[in-house]
């Protein structure tokens, strides 16, 4: 019954998602905007800033870590090593895609139902709170995750078109795949879960988005930590990080169920 109910929520949420032009545009275009923008930054940094970066002690430390993690990169000229360093950040930059889609969509998921009055009718059905929240989370997280993977493919396509195809093998490391297939699902679920929590606690979508924004900060921190050479995320470290995020997902679901007060939601929203 639980699987049937969650599938039921998924189907309904997807029809609503893809009949809303704003959400469709967000889901479909945002990933390409993110990829395009960051590839442009990398190109600019490589073209005009690599000499300066090589002189910086911060980037020298980061390059040392890169060469320890990917020894094949040591055969490249120094400026190309900088480019490999930048391109390797993309495994974390990709994580911004599900987060941004989550903030844009999940934040509205409960708020909208409160405002249109459908939530009270829904709460009079036998659906369990965790089924409702998980269904809504997966309904957003699955398309966001698919778009993240499509973006990864688009990124590889673009760097090949830019003539960096020989660098692709230095980007497609085990860490890259762990990031795509472990971190990205974990982050997608987490951002949608936080969006749904925000949505059930907030009075409007703006409040909910503010709550969901919290998840962006650790991702930016990950990028900052790696690019400045403080820590290099080896496959093992990425695996550990992924498992931590999946644990946090489970905790977030439990927290979301506790925070979702059917009574106060019904009374406070008219």
């Amino acid at each position, binding site marked *: 019954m639980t699987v*049937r109910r969650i599938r*039921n929520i998924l189907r*309904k949420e997807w029809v609503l998602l893809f009949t809303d032009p704003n959400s469709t545009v967000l889901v479909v275009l945002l990933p390409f905007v993110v990829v395009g923008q960051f590839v442009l930054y990398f190109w600019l940094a490589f073209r005009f800033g690599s000499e300066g970066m090589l002189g910086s002690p911060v980037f020298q430390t980061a390059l040392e870590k890169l060469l320890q993690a990917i020894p094949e990169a040591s055969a490249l000229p120094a400026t190309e090593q900088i480019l490999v360093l930048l391109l390797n950040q993309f495994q974390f930059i990709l994580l911004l895609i599900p987060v941004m889609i989550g903030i844009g969509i999940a934040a509205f998921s409960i708020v909208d139902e409160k405002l*249109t*009055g*459908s939530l*009270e009718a829904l709460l*009079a*059905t036998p659906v369990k709170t965790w089924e409702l929240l998980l269904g809504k989370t997966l309904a957003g997280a699955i398309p966001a995750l698919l778009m993240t993977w499509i973006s990864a493919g688009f990124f590889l396509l673009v760097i090949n078109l830019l003539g960096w195809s020989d660098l692709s093998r230095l980007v497609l490391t085990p860490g890259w795949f762990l990031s795509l297939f472990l971190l990205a699902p974990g982050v997608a679920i987490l951002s949608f879960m936080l969006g749904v929590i925000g949505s059930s606690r907030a009075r409007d979508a703006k409040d909910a988005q503010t709550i969901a924004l919290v998840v962006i900060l650790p991702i930016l921190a990950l990028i900052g930590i790696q690019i400045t050479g403080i820590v290099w995320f080896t496959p093992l470290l990425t695996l550990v990080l992924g498992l931590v995020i999946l644990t946090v997902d489970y905790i977030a679901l439990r927290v979301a169920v506790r925070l979702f007060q059917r009574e106060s939601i*019904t009374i406070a929203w008219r």
Partner: protein
Amino acid sequence: MAIIEASGLTRLFGEVLAVDDLTMSVEPGEVLGFLGPNGAGKTTTIRMLAGIIAPTRGQAIVAGYRTDQDVEKLHEVIGMLTETPGLYDRLSARRNLEYFAGFYAIDDVPGRVEKYLRLMELWDRREDRAGTFSKGMKQRLALARALIHEPKVLFLDEPTSGLDPEAASEVRQLILRLRDEGCTIFLSTHNLSEAEMLCNRIAVIHTRLLALDTAESLRRRFFRRKVMVELQSHDPNVVAVVRKLPFVQTADEQGTRLSVDLIDSEHNRPELVRAIVEAGGKVITVSEEQYTLEQVYLRLMNEEKASDSQAHS
């Protein structure tokens, strides 16, 4: 055995008492009208009985389930029409129903959806988005949603509120049909004639339960049944004879009409007519003065206001 049994049901919102010590029961197949002014606690009562909010004190058992403990099982057997239809405007009528049907153990969802779309006369518009529907159609669709799992008890909160007369009439006809099929209905409404037309019994609430009975019994309780006699012409002698009759309490004349308050309206009526005829009066019609449920309701509210002001002074 009652299908709804509330005992000392009380709900406070902070310091504000929304429902006070509500004790009542509803029999299976009964349509109970729940009347009261805005803020009287009607919606709060429905929400407590439907297990959406918990009572501060007291308890209720609906269809055999405690509303504060067996919520999931309770939700399997109740249907609820909220004040606003709360439909998904971008979903078709069919998808709206399929979505809600998907939360219950229904074997043939498409068949059930078709049954209720046809019942609500929405089958031809099944693929249209709910957002394109008129208010009446939305309300019918919301009613279909509340019925899709064929609940034992149906809670209707202001089902005709905001509808035009034609749409309201359509919804009332549907409620009558459900009543005839034996569905227990708890109907909250502001519309007194609607309550009188649809309900077996009427409950009047103003935070606490003021009255619960059939409309006829409420009328008898609050108004004596006066007999109206229309005479061909005014005759002071007839009036004097009527006033002297031992079973007449009061007799007022208004032109050719006599309004007579009898000790026993049904048994004394023939004797009254005979006495008038013997006194030379020519009777055109004899009828009973009709009191509306509205008059009963207003009287109850006035009494409640008077007792409130007494309590405050």
